[in-house]
């Protein structure tokens, strides 16, 4: 009897111990959590030092993350949101759902960074990715006038899709609406997220896809296939700086802080180039093959506030132009 009681007690203790392993919930975009994305490697690296359970949850593409967090509001289970970009940080800050990260890191970005809430984890140049033997273009005007078929992402749900709106706006100014009207017949379809678009391109549904200058590195390094390239535009390519932030209402504040600090460390940063296929946000060595990538003449980027100011109008122009 006594032994039974003891063993029951032991089991109870053991299960409490399991229950006490804290869980850190990270809300992110789909391709980050996929088995070939950075998620699994980062999970293993962080769990090795945190004595916790790191859970990535995919919620569509980057821009949908913000809507998702607003939908769940203050009661969300998420402790960290990872995968917004500078085009969304002003709107994200206004929700009041994010807390300062408190991390000081030696960042290696093409732009100056002093945001106390949103911490960059990688960056890249947006670009159209195509086969090398497809005749490329170097401006939106040339693309719109060509017969090239492209796949793009919805700017309301996808961060590269939104970046493209900013890019056309930065490159063409008031001529943006006309560019979109003329691009309409080049666009095969608009997908909700990057994954769908890139797969449509790989399946041969389009000549080019909106992605990053770093995407061909995936084919080169992971598949030993050097047939893909990306197009640098004369006016420059738009930059995307991807960020993470801590959720105000987190029930694991210490763990969240620990993860935010981990983002800028080699355990996280070294995984980025060959899983997320982007440039890391700190100074780490790049794998062979990255030196073959297109480097645009210039990196364009609207400030977070400027991007927030024009976003709604640009989305509306885009919707109107493409729905004709």
């Amino acid at each position: 009897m006594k032994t039974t009681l003891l063993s029951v007690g032991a089991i109870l203790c053991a299960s409490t111990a399991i229950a006490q392993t804290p869980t850190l919930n990270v809300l992110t975009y789909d391709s980050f959590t996929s088995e070939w994305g950075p998620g699994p490697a980062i999970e293993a690296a962080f769990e090795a030092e945190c004595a916790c359970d790191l859970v990535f949850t995919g919620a569509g593409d980057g821009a949908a993350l913000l809507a998702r967090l607003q939908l769940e509001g203050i009661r969300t289970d998420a402790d960290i949101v990872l995968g917004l970009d500078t085009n969304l940080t002003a709107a994200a800050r206004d929700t009041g759902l994010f807390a300062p990260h408190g991390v000081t890191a030696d960042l290696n970005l093409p732009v100056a960074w002093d945001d106390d809430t949103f911490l960059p984890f990688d960056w890249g140049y947006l670009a159209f990715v195509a086969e090398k033997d497809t005749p490329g273009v170097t401006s939106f005007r040339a693309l719109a006038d060509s017969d090239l078929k492209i796949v793009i992402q919805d700017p309301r749900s996808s961060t590269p899709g939104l970046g493209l709106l900013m890019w056309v706006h930065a490159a063409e100014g008031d001529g943006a609406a006309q560019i979109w009207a003329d691009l309409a017949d080049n666009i095969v379809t608009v997908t909700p997220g990057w994954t769908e678009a890139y797969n449509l391109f790989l399946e041969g549904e389009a000549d080019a896809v909106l992605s990053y200058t770093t995407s061909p590195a995936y084919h080169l390094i992971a598949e030993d296939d050097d047939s893909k390239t990306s197009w640098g535009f004369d006016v420059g390519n738009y930059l995307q700086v991807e960020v993470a932030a801590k959720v105000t209402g987190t029930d694991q504040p210490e763990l969240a802080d620990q993860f935010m600090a981990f983002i800028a460390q080699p355990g996280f940063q070294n995984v980025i180039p060959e899983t997320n296929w982007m440039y890391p946000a700190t100074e780490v060595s790049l794998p062979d093959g990255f030196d073959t990538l297109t480097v645009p003449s210039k990196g364009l980027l609207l400030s977070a506030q400027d991007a927030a100011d024009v976003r709604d109008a640009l989305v509306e122009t885009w919707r109107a132009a493409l729905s004709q």
Partner: protein
Amino acid sequence: MARRAVAIIRSLPAWLTAALVLALTLGTLAAVAWRAEVGRGLSAGDWSAIRFTVLQAAASAVVSVVLAIPVARALARRQFRGRGALVMLLGAPFILPVIVAVLGLLAVFGRGGLLNVGLGAVGVAPVSIYGAGGVVLAHVFFNLPLAVRLILQGWLSIPAERFRLAAQLNAPLWRVLELPMLARHMPGALLVVFLICLTSFAVALTLGGGPRATTVELAIWQAIRFDFDLGRAALLACVQFALCAMAALVAWHITPLDGFGSGLDRTVARWDQSRWDWVWLILVTLFLVLPLAMILWRGVPSLPDLGLDIYRAAGRSVLVALAATALTLGAALSLSLRGGLLVGMIGALPLAASALVMGTGLFLMVFPFVNPVTVALPVTVCVNAFMALPFALRLLSPTVADIRADYGRLAANLALGPWATLRLIILPRVRKSLSFAAGLTMALSIGDLGVVALFATPAQETLPLAMYRLMGAYRMDAAAGAAVLLLFLALGAFWVCDSRGQGDADAG
């Protein structure tokens, strides 16, 4: 006393159900209207969504009904082995999960599909299924069979004597008999298909492809999931309700919605058969069977590789469907026991309602109190139950009315209490209709991809949603495997329920 108790037991559940239905339609609409930012007006993109919704519904209706005419005529004037099976096949799309059909259509009409492989072989440029064409194609896949069945009833309603008379007078059949019949039946068929396509969500979500092919339902989903713009979602929900209400009002005046009528096997010996009949019958059979065959061909081999998450999603789908079915049957039974015009109208309300509008309304109601994600599945149960109610009611209420006419006085004489009446007299006699209704509700709910997409996260994913995610990631073999599972569950649930109804008390 007993009579009064019977009256109460007849009325109380019915009014409770009616209140619930009204809360789900008008209540959610009120929540939506209260929140709608009318002052902001509709943007150019919203107007184009409205235009596309109406145009694609009209195009789908016209194409479905026009193609249905030669098929129905061929069925009406031909007798052949397998005719019954073909008529049954025409009923199958009704309980086929939309997303399964979409995947099947992609396998036939998509970039790597049979059609484009064929076109490529003869040097024709490939056609794309994404956009307006794909949306209409999928709608025709679902509604051509329905239109054939509706119009076939028209043909079979022409008495055989008229045909003989026409033959004796050597009168042109088409002009004197068939054209007037079509003039009577076509408007109804057109409107039914139009109404169904007006609330299209899953098809537009999967095949729409961008602002050019966005329905209002899809725009509501985007406003919530992409922009978290509740004011705009609510405004669009009001627009959707107005569109549906207008179409439903017109339909209410023109035709009774009757899709499962009997008497399809009564045929007239016709002398005016054409060889084209066979062409039409073969084409429509191929059109319906090929996509499903492709799913099976692609999906069965990948069934063993399906992950645990897919089976969990399947489990959730079955639980949701069971709960929805219990609700629907309870609601349909209580409304049928009460009977009456008002109850009938309330039961028909869901036909004009949109799942996304209800979902948005419920969302607005619960948002201040709980994390909407936690109620994703209960909300889905409610909406699924509710959307199946008109069909269940249509099956049950005539039977219940007959039973009450036949046995009502006997029950009163014996002073049977309300529960005894229900248990001893009504339930044994409605088993057949009840089982059929249960099968329909199960199948519809298991295959539903609508309101669940508004809130659910991977932790609440149902099987159709999981399948949509796999398609998005282009894991097409896994998606086809999930499709086979979904198809098996939906048709299996229908079959299990329906076959329990054999051996009715009256049918003997």
